[in-house]
């Protein structure tokens, strides 16, 4: 390689390009970035401080601004628009096992009464579980069952379908389809092989414990 070619290799990109680079790095970084760090990530010969100055100017008065945090830089929402950001702070929590099981039963068996849910789960359903699902707007009351006592039934809501990306509750896969998708094999419970597809390779039940 000749000296001339090397020279051009190290020539810094035009300032417009450098500005784009700083913009992208600051945008994607999870933390404010220092000038030194910018220089380390940009091609040789760049001047991140100058690029930052241009970028800062460009974002003046926009919805986001370039803010200095200590000796580092980050994009921040313009202070006057903070009120738009309230929705961003939601705390995600995993649904409890009781709740997800109850929800699954409602989805697969709707309309379903509380007694039926308990029968399928084999355990009492706490008041709070149903309340939580009602509050989440994932289940709602359906028609009363025309049986003695006229118990209320539960069905899933539009919000439920929306959350789980379903077009209708009928689109939920059946047991066979769950099995075909490998969803029934993920719990290595003792004795769970009995009906599993790998029947042939695993002895069933615990009787073999006592066999010779």
């Amino acid at each position, binding site marked *: 390689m000749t000296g001339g070619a090397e020279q051009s290799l190290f020539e810094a990109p035009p300032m417009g390009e450098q500005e784009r680079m700083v913009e*992208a790095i600051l*945008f*994607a*970084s*999870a*933390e404010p970035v220092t000038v030194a760090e910018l220089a380390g990530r940009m091609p040789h010969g760049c001047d991140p401080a100058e690029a930052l100055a241009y970028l800062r100017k460009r974002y003046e008065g926009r919805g986001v601004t370039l803010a200095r945090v200590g000796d580092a830089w*980050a*994009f921040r*929402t313009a202070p006057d628009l*903070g009120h738009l*950001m*309230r*929705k*961003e*702070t*939601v*705390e*995600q*929590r*995993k*649904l409890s*096992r009781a*709740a*997800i*099981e109850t*929800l*699954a*039963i409602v*989805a*697969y068996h709707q309309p379903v009464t509380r007694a039926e849910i308990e029968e*399928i*789960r*084999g355990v009492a359903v706490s008041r709070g579980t149903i309340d939580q699902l009602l509050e*989440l707007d994932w289940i709602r009351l359906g028609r009363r069952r025309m049986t003695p006592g006229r118990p209320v039934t539960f069905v899933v809501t539009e919000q439920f379908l929306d*959350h*789980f*990306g*379903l077009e209708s509750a009928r689109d*939920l*896969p059946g*047991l066979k389809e*769950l*099995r075909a*998708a490998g*969803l*029934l094999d*993920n*719990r290595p*419970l*003792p*004795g*769970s092989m*009995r*009906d599993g597809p790998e029947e042939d390779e695993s002895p069933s*039940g*615990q*009787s073999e414990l*006592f*066999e*010779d």
Partner: protein
Amino acid sequence: MAEDTDEWTLPERLSPADRLAAEALIVDVDGFEGPLDLLLTLGRTQKVDLRRVSVLQLAEQYLTFVQRAQALRIELAADYLVMAAWLAFLKSRLLLPPDPTDEGPSAEELAAHLAFQLERLAAMREAAASLMARDQLGRDFFARGLPEDVTRARKVTYSATLLDLMRAYARIRTKDEFRPFVMDRDHVFTMEQALDRMRGLIGYAGDWADLTSFLPEGWGATPMRRRSSTAAHFAAVLELVKRGQIVLRQGETFAPIQIKRRDG
């Protein structure tokens, strides 16, 4: 079907190069994702547009492959053999003049469908490759690294995925099929049971008698039941000795254990 079997033994019209290629394929049999994948590879060796691939030639190549594999005692999955049978049938139909009384699709239609399947699979592979060659999020382009949470208007949302839901349901619905890890009581004789029995029986053990003769009926039939009842009764007997109700003796190691009521 006599013609079909004849077809298998017809002299192969394969060039030496094809034969070598077929042999190379055999070594590689595990690398194929099923017969269609293999056929596609064979089709590509014809170096023509897949739409103009010679299905007859393809069938021959495939049948040669299967024969070689069998000669080399390579275990081929059933679907390879099903495909071989179907291609042998197709080949015979392609070679014979069409039977006007024959119902159903013509050999040419079947051949055209096979060519279509190969072309479609090839097209999907290319589509998959161009999909994966695209710029990808988190690799080539990036999302905001520092999503802002400006005001702490804490709102708890509960999340669950469809997969969680389906797994939960699978868990419930297969619960009945699970057997909790408990002893199978049908084949287990407990010490309490043995103790109850022996209490009633020791009255008759005035003389030395083998412990095995006290085992309940029907519990000597299977090894599992025999072992369980023997162990239970032995433990029960030890308990009775401890209480001073019986005495027990054994001539030597592994000799039968004998018991007798303790008089007085």
